[in-house]
């Protein structure tokens, strides 16, 4: 990338894309000794042109590329696109299908938060074991996914008009069993990791983002709620079955790295609560309405919003009467949070050694920001 100018007496360091904690991006750090003066994010390493791809695919074909945005969270990402298609084409969704979608979304959210949590443990440098714990416990969810959708990753299970198949026989009981197991494990995580003096020393009061800054800079998801702002699309503008489900929007007042980690942790608790409700109360009925395989759109536009694990995702779809979308604008949560990350060094003192912890606190997924 072409780089902005460096001020005198400042050293510019390149961090990533080969660094073990950086992911598929490069971060430029202007440092003076240990202190970071400026953070510059160099994105685009994984740009695949998904928005352009969608213009050349029918509505149904588009579901496959868009789910590649975030592999850990495909249920939520896919649903953003599917709700846009449904609103655009005027397709009704049966109630049972909406509940199954919510179940899938919450399982995806836990899956994604678990991964983020394991990486955060890795970034603090003291808990290689926790990453293995989270990866092992994820298997419980992956098995449920496999039984429900036939795939452990990238499900393509929600389709315009409902979901692909009904719940398998006895699936509700397995969900409850999984919820009980994960609840017990999360108590272990909390005592072993979150209330751990070393973890607290690395995360407390690091990279403070005040609520007014979080709103002004367009933060979203756990980053915004970790600054004490209760915005969650699931509550503000309920989609799928969230209007009928009982859950709380988690916020933390501390505004630091620890607060963002705790928000994710407590959101897992809420997701388990939702999973349990769905397993106990899922209404009966059909799971899919008939939709032509290559539907024709009406000219117009639709803006749909969903809450993914990383925050709000917006899909603005323009249609011109053809069988493909005319244009799809995807508002990516990681791109918004990466801007906040760039500004963090100016808002609070950030040290070089904190960078892995700080970047994982925004839970970046570069395939999402680059699209």
């Amino acid at each position, binding site marked *: *990338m*072409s*780089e*902005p100018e460096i001020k005198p007496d400042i050293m510019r360091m390149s961090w990533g894309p080969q660094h073990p904690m950086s992911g598929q991006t490069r971060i430029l750090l202007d440092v003076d000794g240990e202190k970071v003066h400026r953070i510059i994010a160099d*994105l*685009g390493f994984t*740009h695949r*042109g998904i*928005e*352009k791809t969608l213009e*050349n695919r029918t509505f149904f074909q588009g579901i496959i590329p868009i789910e590649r945005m975030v592999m850990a969270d495909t249920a939520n990402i896919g649903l953003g696109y599917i709700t846009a298609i449904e609103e655009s084409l005027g397709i009704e969704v049966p109630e049972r299908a909406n509940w199954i979608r919510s179940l899938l979304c919450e399982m995806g959210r836990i899956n994604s938060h678990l991964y983020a949590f394991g990486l955060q443990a890795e970034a603090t440098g003291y808990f290689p074991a926790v990453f293995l714990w989270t990866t092992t416990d994820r298997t419980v969810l992956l098995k449920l996914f496999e039984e429900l959708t036939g795939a452990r990753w990238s499900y393509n299970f929600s389709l315009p008009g409902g979901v692909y198949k009904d719940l398998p026989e006895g699936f509700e009981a397995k969900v409850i069993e999984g919820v009980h197991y994960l609840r017990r494990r999360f108590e272990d995580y909390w005592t072993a990791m979150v209330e751990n003096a070393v973890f607290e020393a690395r995360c407390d009061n690091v990279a403070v983002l005040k609520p007014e800054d979080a*709103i*002004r*800079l*367009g933060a979203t998801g756990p980053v915004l709620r970790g600054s004490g*702002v209760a*915005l969650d699309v699931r509550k*503000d*503008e309920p989609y799928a079955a969230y209007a009928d489900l009982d859950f709380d929007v988690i916020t933390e007042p501390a505004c630091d790295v620890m607060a963002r980690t705790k928000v994710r942790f407590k959101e897992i608790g809420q997701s388990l609560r939702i999973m349990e409700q769905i397993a106990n109360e899922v209404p009966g009925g059909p799971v899919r309405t008939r939709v032509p395989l290559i539907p024709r759109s009406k000219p117009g*536009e639709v*803006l749909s*919003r969903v809450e993914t694990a990383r925050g*709000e995702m*917006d899909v*603005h779809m*323009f249609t011109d009467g053809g069988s493909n979308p*005319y*244009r799809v*604008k995807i*508002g*990516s949560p990681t*791109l*918004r949070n*990466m*801007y*906040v990350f760039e500004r963090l060094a100016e808002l609070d003192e950030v040290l070089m050694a904190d960078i892995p912890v700080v970047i994982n606190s925004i839970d970046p997924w570069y395939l999402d920001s*680059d*699209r």
Partner: protein
Amino acid sequence: MSGVSEADLAEKVKAAHPDLVESSEVLRERRVSVTVKRDGFLEVAKSLRDDFGFIHPVCGGAVDYPKESRMQMIYYLLHPGLKVILTYRVNLPRDDLRLPTLTQVWEAMSFHERETHDMFGIEFEGHPNMIPLLIPPDWRGGYPLRKDFKGEGVE
């Protein structure tokens, strides 16, 4: 918030700047769309932030309409209290794609304007850091999201 207050909001924006706002309408519940003239672009944006409470920037992007020989730049803004998304639009003729940068009003639009510059070639005048965001710096292949762009593998 019911449909009535969104209509109120759309009306008030229009009434506050009758000469600068081209159209102001409610698309559906929680969706308001405001289209402005290029001359009043910054003034209406400041007023949306300061007078109408759209303090939370969401994202930004553009749509290409080669048949009508225009592009539409769209900024997405959220009112955190009312939970209303406002799409703030301005039409640009395709042979004169210049716009003052909106980073002076919402600085977080920086990334979205850089991305739009990469993909559509819209010039944002006064942007503090206009370097490629997603495309490689040595890319000479044109603007990928324009409708007349034909990439390999796309017919």
